[in-house]
């Protein structure tokens, strides 16, 4: 019997359709159907100036907007031959790690709710709000930040932010202990999640699965360590690893990653306190043009030309390895922008970790993948 889980279904966390063939309560075959949220971001980017693509990046993944901004900006800077100042690198690490915290907390909330437990959902949303408050304080937005610019970031931190961030980090560490008590301390949680959705290390590599799913299988790959970008090579942190490759292991890896993120943020905040400086590179136009002349001014002709280049960047997004490939052919718009979404690949391997389990296991397994359809469909 084929049943459609989606596009409107509590399990999907987004807009996609998981067709499931079931035999009693056992899953025999699956077929994901994507594209319900396809907005053609790669196509729209071809008609936009480099800075204006940032607004699209925030909407690519709605829980990790700033990580995608970071990804795109790195590629665009390489394509445009711009080198950002050093303080900017640390600021970018700061916001990316805070975004990772926010994204993982959001994941925790949604995942535990899939298991039928509502209160951690609200605890998670409450604690994520603190991070959003910080984002609001220095980017002005709570969900769509528009913080990065080619050549730097929009603005420096307002005074007093670093102290507030430190306080929040201390508070969050207590909350993580509370999360663990609610989940790991519960026998029901363990019986639900142990030995569930197992995807062993070898299969992970074959199917191109990245991120916490891969590290939960024991593969030590983290682009922040293996191929350091921004300021990650100057910061101390560990790669979170687990070896059971099941849902519990993914939970553990994400929890440990959050603790490591807090560790990184504390170091970055200390560095930022002692190293003031510019946050925007010199020689970069503050405003990189407009997509079209405004209505009523079609006669306007505004052209800037950049020397050609191709930019490739890869970051460890909260969901896994994300890459951007930006081709600059000298025009005011990029010639081609290609994004690799980690969830896109993790989802494409869904058959290998869903078949054979129960229907009731689909929500926690898909929850442990951390599906963000915005970045799958782009």
């Amino acid at each position, binding site marked *: 019997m084929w049943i459609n889980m989606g596009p409107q279904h509590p399990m999907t966390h987004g807009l996609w359709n998981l067709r499931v063939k079931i035999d009693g309560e056992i899953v025999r075959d699956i077929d994901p159907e994507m594209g319900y949220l396809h907005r053609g971001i790669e196509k729209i980017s071809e008609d936009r100036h480099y800075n204006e693509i940032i607004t699209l990046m925030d909407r690519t993944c709605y829980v990790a907007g700033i990580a995608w901004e970071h990804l795109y900006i790195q590629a665009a800077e390489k394509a445009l031959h711009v080198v950002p100042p050093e303080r900017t690198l640390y600021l970018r690490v700061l916001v990316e790690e805070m975004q990772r915290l926010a994204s993982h907390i959001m994941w925790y909330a949604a995942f535990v709710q899939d298991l039928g437990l509502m*209160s951690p959902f609200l605890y998670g949303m409450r604690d994520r709000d603190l991070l959003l408050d910080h984002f609001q304080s220095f980017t002005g937005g709570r969900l769509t930040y528009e913080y990065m610019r080619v050549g730097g970031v929009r603005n420096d931190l307002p005074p007093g932010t670093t102290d507030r961030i430190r306080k929040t980090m201390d508070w969050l560490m207590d909350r993580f202990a509370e999360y663990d008590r609610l989940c790991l301390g519960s026998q029901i949680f363990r019986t639900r999640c142990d030995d569930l959705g197992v995807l062993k290390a070898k299969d992970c590599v074959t199917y191109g699965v990245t991120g916490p799913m891969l590290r939960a299988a024991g593969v030590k790959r983290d682009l922040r360590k293996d191929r350091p970008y921004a300021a990650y090579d100057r910061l101390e942190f560990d790669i979170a690893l687990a070896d059971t490759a099941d849902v519990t292991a993914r939970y553990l890896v994400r929890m440990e990653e959050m603790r490591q993120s807090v560790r990184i943020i504390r170091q970055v905040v200390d560095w930022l306190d002692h190293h003031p400086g510019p946050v925007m*590179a010199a020689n970069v136009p503050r405003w990189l043009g407009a997509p079209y002349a405004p209505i009523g001014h079609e006669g306007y002709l505004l052209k800037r030309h950049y020397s050609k280049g191709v930019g490739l960047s890869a970051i460890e997004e909260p969901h896994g390895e994300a890459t951007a490939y930006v081709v600059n052919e000298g025009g005011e718009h990029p010639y081609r922008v290609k994004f690799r979404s980690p969830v896109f690949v993790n989802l494409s391997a869904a058959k290998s970790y869903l078949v054979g389990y129960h229907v009731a296991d689909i929500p926690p397994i898909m929850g442990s993948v951390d599906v963000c359809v915005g970045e799958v469909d782009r």
Partner: protein
Amino acid sequence: MAASAKPKEEESPNPVLWVARPMATAARQFVKSLVRPSTIVYPFERLEDPKFRDQVRVESGHPIGIGEVWDNYRGVHALNIATCISCNLCAFSCPDLCIEMVTVPGGDPKHPKKCPQIDYGKCSYCGFCSDACPEGCLTMTTRYELSVSRRPEMVFSPQKLHEVFERKLPMNPIRVERPENEDAIRLDAPLCIGCNACARDCPTNCITMVDTPKPTAKPGEKLPRRIWKEPVVNDSDCVRCGTCISVCPKECLFWGTHP
């Protein structure tokens, strides 16, 4: 180097306690929120309300509604019509094409004063326009409630934006620093015909036409018919709006990297 994220012993479930630990955690939260839950009863309690700010327990050091931090919020725009120079930069920088420059009274008939009109049905509140505004007359305020009953009401005319400005809401105080050695307007001198169009249309009047010496024609060479003047751009006053480039009939002005 790599930390192994094994569960600590105290967090692993105890077969005797079974579900006691999560239940105790929930009970602790119950007792905590008996006095006042963390939620804010929005229409009745507002974060931007200074009287309410003191009542919120801030145990986590989070900046919820505290002074300058709240003011960074990117909300509805405020426009000071008096200082607007009609440079078009906001309209150019808008990724959603929601800004239209419309004529407002106050300009001379030849060069009507134009100010932005914003369609909030399209606006994505990215703030590029206020970042681009060279005079700081278009800023974003903390106003976030924008529900209207009819769609045309979403379009805010310059006058309506000016009303927002006059309500003296907290303005977004962050001004984007202009980078050093920004690209500037450069002249491809041999093409120029000295027509004065750029200087006439420059919103900041930073272009002056200076005389250039008329070269003596070599025998057999025909001098171009032109006015022997060339624009000189005062880079410190220039707001990089590009109006001069777009009005130049010979396309002899271009963006150049600062020396």
